[in-house]
Structures are given as structure tokens and as C-alpha cells.
């Protein structure tokens, strides 16, 4: 039995992000995790949602450039605040309008954006 096979990843444009997230909130799904990855000079942002009863796990995948402004979804899901601060601090994703913005002081690390390769800073 391989239950993990059912996991879906949907690629969407950055512009559709907020609408999609709002749509998922109206369906009663909750944020499972948000993370960033750096692939070939671009960010890959993953927003995962789960629907509790059905155990359905979907991930919205947004691919954007290093300096693109990413709107915060904390107005829709307040608990996303730590995930977004983490993305901003570790990867330098330009997340705008976070409800509680730690200004890169969540982990208070000395090295800036440690997850980016050196030449990209």
C-alpha cells in the first residue's frame, strides 16, 4: 500500500496565487506547509494544503525570479506568518506585506540567505 502516491502538485502563476489560496480557504482546507527551493536561478515556492477528513494533500507550486515580489498570504491564513518569515530569511524571497514581519530576524542568523549559492547574492 503506497498512500503517498496520491499527492498532487499543481503549477500556477504567481498572479493566481492569492485567488487560489482564498479558494482553498473557502473549501475548508488548511495550510500544511510552505517552503522555498532554489532551482536553476529561480525560486520554487510550494504551498501545501490538506483537507483533514479526506487526507487530500495538494501543493501549489509557484516559480518566480529572484527579485519578484511575492504577496503574503497571512491575510488569508494568519498562521502562515512563520513559514513566510522563514522563506524570507533563509532564501531571501521578497515576500511583501507579512502581517508580523520579523525583518529577517526570525532566526537571527549572521549569514545572509544561507541557502542561496554564493554568486547569486
Amino acid at each position, binding site marked *: 500500500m503506497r*498512500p503517498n502516491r496520491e499527492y498532487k502538485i499543481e503549477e500556477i502563476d504567481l498572479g493566481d496565487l492569492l485567488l487560489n489560496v482564498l479558494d482553498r480557504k473557502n473549501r475548508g482546507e488548511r495550510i500544511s506547509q510552505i517552503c522555498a527551493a532554489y532551482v536553476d536561478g529561480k525560486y520554487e515556492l510550494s504551498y501545501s494544503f490538506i483537507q483533514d477528513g479526506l487526507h487530500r494533500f495538494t501543493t501549489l507550486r509557484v516559480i518566480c525570479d529572484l527579485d519578484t515580489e511575492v504577496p503574503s498570504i497571512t491575510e488569508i491564513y494568519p498562521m502562515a506568518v512563520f513559514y513566510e518569515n522563514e522563506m524570507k530569511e533563509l532564501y531571501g524571497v521578497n515576500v511583501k506585506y507579512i502581517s*508580523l514581519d520579523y525583518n529577517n530576524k*526570525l532566526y537571527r542568523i549572521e549569514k545572509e540567505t544561507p*541557502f542561496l549559492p554564493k554568486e547569486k547574492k
Partner: protein
Amino acid sequence: MGKKSIVPFGPQHPVLPEPIHLDLVLEDEIVTNVIPSIGFIHRGLESLTEKKDYFEMVYVAERTCGICSFGHGMGYCEAVEEVMDVEIPDRAKYLRTIWMELSRLHSHLLWLGLLADGFGFESLFYQSWRIRERILDLIELTTGGRVIFSVNKVGGVLKDITPDMLKHILTELDQVEADVRVIEHTFLFDYSVQSRLKGVGVLSRKQVHMLGAVGPFARASGINIDMRSLGYEAYGDLDFEPIVSSDGDSYARCEVRIHEIYQSIDIIRQAISKIPEGELSVSVKGNVKGEHFVRIEQPRGEAIYYVKGTGKLYLDRLRIRTPTFANLPALVEMLKGCNYADVPILILTIDPCISCTER
């Protein structure tokens, strides 16, 4: 309207062995706002993927946290196996299940002890930890380690549990169950304990859902989420029901965890009665190409492992989303409006694991 004052909590605080810092905004004795700041234990172990290959990363993943160390190793291995399309032998699945449940037992007993210490019941703390030592002895017997026991590898497990050991585990578990029944009575029916736990830090089902809490913390508020019901490893063959309570207060959280101890004992018994013979691991060759999310149920709740590789020996991205990270927003919400004296207890009731949270 009283005078506002800000009281710092932590990072070094008697109630928690781990450092977390909270700025509590108080109005008289009531907490009105909480600003958490984390990062005292941030190591950045996800970035070690650049320096260690995906076989070595198992040991790094296990050291995300010392309490749920086995689960982290297992989740990471599952994610890599899933990407590489490796099916591990059935015996390895059962062995992983048994060790996972032993970890859950030791974690929950540890938490019960810390909770007892939190409300000042020292002898109950000692009793819980005395029972926990029996579980640790079982872990040491089967793996050789006490808290970090590195028996996972990509493709299976490293050690076997012999039939003699399985028999010994069963007799020890009978004793553990009898011992827990004794302290359960004090935790659930002692009036001084009840006065510290009942009606304290209530979170409704809707609040918990919106704040995205996971694990026993969410189940105590009536949300039926238990990743074990997804049926990974051997859980699909075993019979159990998630334990859910509807009160949503500290007492319910304690109750849920105590019942989960009995549930874990039951799962181990079932697994031992059904464990098949066979190989312990399959050999894994090649590199990781692709990506996958894996969700498993840790003692503290749902943990997510994300692995991404582009056909190299070194992974491109490993992301571990730990249960306490998901529980933090709910903790902040729960602390608002509570009494200052209840803050340590309330922090304990989410079963915080700061090492997990900050990685």
C-alpha cells in the same frame, strides 16, 4: 484597565530544558499579547545536503531532534525511497512500526513527567520517568542506543529484533501498562492536578483548524487527524482508531496523550503478532531524481519531509516541517487571555520541541 508591562520568558527557564524566548505583554496578571522569538538552536541542518550525500543525510535527519529521532530518520528514508521507487521488505516495515511506537511511548511518558514537573508534582515526574526507563531499556536492547539509535537506512533497517527480544518486549509492555494505569489515576482524577489543567487554555475546534495545529494538540480539540491512518509502513495492516477528545483544554491534551500510550502498546502487540519473516533491507543504487512529500505522525503530530533531487548524489533540497513549527501560531493564540501563572503549563501542553522547530 491595568498597567501594561512586558515580561520576558526564557531563553533559560526552569520549566523547559530548551531555550525559547517569548515576550509576554501583561495587563495586571493577564497576558494580552505574545511575541515569540526563536532561533537559539537554529543550526541550519537542511543546508547540510550540500556536504553530505543522501545516505549520510539519514544520520543528520535523525539529529533534528533527540526525542523523535527515529521518526525523523524514518520520514526522510521514506521520502527518498518514494522518489527512487524502492519497496522495502515487509519485515523492515513492521520493525520500523515497532520502533516508531516505542519512540512514541517514551516521548509521551517524558511529556507526562515534564507536565508533572511543570505543575510542581515532583514525585509524579519521577514516577513517569521511572516507567520511561523501561521503554529505553527495550530500545537499548533492540538497537544499542538509548535516545538516538540510528537503525534506519535508505532501503530498510540495519538491525533485526530476534524472537526472544520480541517476547521480552511483550512481557515488559505488560508491566509498563500496569504502571501507567497507576499514574493515570493521579493525572486524571487527582483534584489538585485537575485544578491546574481543567478549563485552562481552551481552544475550540474551529480555532485549532484555522491555526493549523497538528497532533495530540489538535486531537484534544476534536480534530480527527492522525497521519497513521494513511497506512504508511505497517500501519495499514494494523487496527487502531485515532484518539479524539472534544474539550480542548489542557486536561483533554493530557487525557489524549495518556490514552495514546495504551494505543501504542496495543499497536506494538498487534505488530509483534503479525510480523513476517524476511529480509531487513534491499540494496539501493543510483541517485535521487524527482521530488516527493511524505507525511508521518510523530509523537507531537504531523511531520512533513520534502525531498528534491536532480540526479546527483547530493540532494537539492531537504525540507523538514516539524509538528511544533505548525503548533506555534496556536500556542500564541492560546496564551492570549490566560493567567500569567499558567504560561509554563500552557507552553508544555503543546509538547514543545524547540530543536525540531528551529532545525
